[in-house]
């Protein structure tokens, strides 16, 4: 049982040789490629991260630029709209004014025309009425012409005339 706690120098020697050789060999065959792969990956990750960060910053810059541009455009659109509204208002007022004016002119001229037509029509009518009256009277007179009555009438008339105006009295 004392073999358990009596170190065997030969085995100690084996251990030291074995371990030293392992350290030397493994550093070349195992740990070097492993660390290389790890470092490569860490570098790749770092690189990816950095590029992602720059891309993000870029995107943020572009976004802010676009936002600014958008705000600018919005303001521009608002301004344009206001301008257009004002000019449209003006245009509308102008058109209404013009329309009102031209309507007044038309109304005036029509009234005048109507007036002219009316007077002409009235004149026409009057002359026509006069003509018709005269013609009618002519006809009537033609029908009622009676020599004796006319003579009586004429003589009565003459007598009256003589009475009124003695200077005109016939001296015969």
């Amino acid at each position, binding site marked *: *049982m004392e*073999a*358990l*706690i*009596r*170190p*065997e*120098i*030969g*085995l*100690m*020697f*084996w*251990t*030291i040789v*074995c*371990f*030293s*050789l*392992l*350290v030397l*060999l*493994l*550093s070349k*065959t*195992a*740990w*070097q*490629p*492993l*660390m290389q*792969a*790890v470092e490569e990956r860490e570098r790749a990750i770092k690189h990816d991260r950095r590029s992602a960060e720059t891309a993000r910053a870029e995107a943020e810059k572009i976004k802010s630029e676009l936002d600014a541009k958008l705000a600018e455009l919005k303001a521009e659109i608002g301004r344009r709209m206001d301008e257009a509204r004002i000019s449209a208002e003006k245009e509308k007022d102008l058109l209404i004014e013009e329309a009102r004016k031209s309507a007044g002119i038309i109304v005036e001229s029509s009234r005048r025309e109507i007036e002219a037509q009316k007077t002409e029509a009235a004149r026409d009518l009057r002359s026509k009425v006069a003509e018709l009256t005269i013609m009618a009277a002519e006809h009537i007179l033609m029908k009622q012409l009676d020599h004796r009555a006319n003579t009586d009438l004429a003589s009565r008339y003459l007598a009256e005339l003589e009475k009124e105006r003695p200077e005109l009295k016939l001296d015969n």
Partner: protein
Amino acid sequence: MDLKLILEHHIVDKIWTWVAFGPLRLPVSKHLLMMGITSLILLVVFPLLIRSRSGALAPFRAMIEMTVLFLRDEVVLPNLGHKGAAYTGYFSTLFFFILIMNLLGLVPYGASATGNLAVTAGLALTTFALINFSGIKEQGLIGYFAHLVPKGVPLWLYPLMFPIEVMGMFIKTFALCIRLFANMIAGHIVILVFICFIFIFGAFGTAFGLLAAPISVGLVLFTLLLELLVAFLQAYIFVTLTAIFTGAAMHPH
């Protein structure tokens, strides 16, 4: 049956033959075989796993990678500072070497090479060498020994403190060696004792033995799971303490 014999059979290293190497008599034993298997796994399987691009092996690759990165970021760099990255390979090797040797003790017909005092002593000596090597490399030979005594100690205490610190260096190493050894051996002993309970109770009567068997097997399973945890934990503790000692040697303040 003799419990001592059973324990010896299962825990003590079996030396098959001796090889002469100069003045040294080197044993060829079961624990050496386990260490060889561990080395083979580390030398063949690990590089293949790391270099393979196959999707089926990706989880294993990821496990190795995560462990190494954990050791680098949580153990090596906080203790050794930014210069410590170069030592990541050493600590990774140490961790996997101890871990696989621990785990081989849980495999049928396997044995824990780390449950052998010589093996843990060898590992502790490499740590001892690393501590002094890194300290001298970082601060220079004179600077290292000058900074061995912590700052703020009055000058007249130096003759006392210096030997204490030097002793401390050895004691740290010794504690490292004993800690790993004891932790690995303890689990095995407990499992063996639980199994022996069955036969001890069986000696009173067959009914006692049959009653004790399920309880013992349950406890053995529990202890095995505990040993699995301890295998990882002790590998981590060994590596972490090595990193702390090395860091202290590199940066005395």
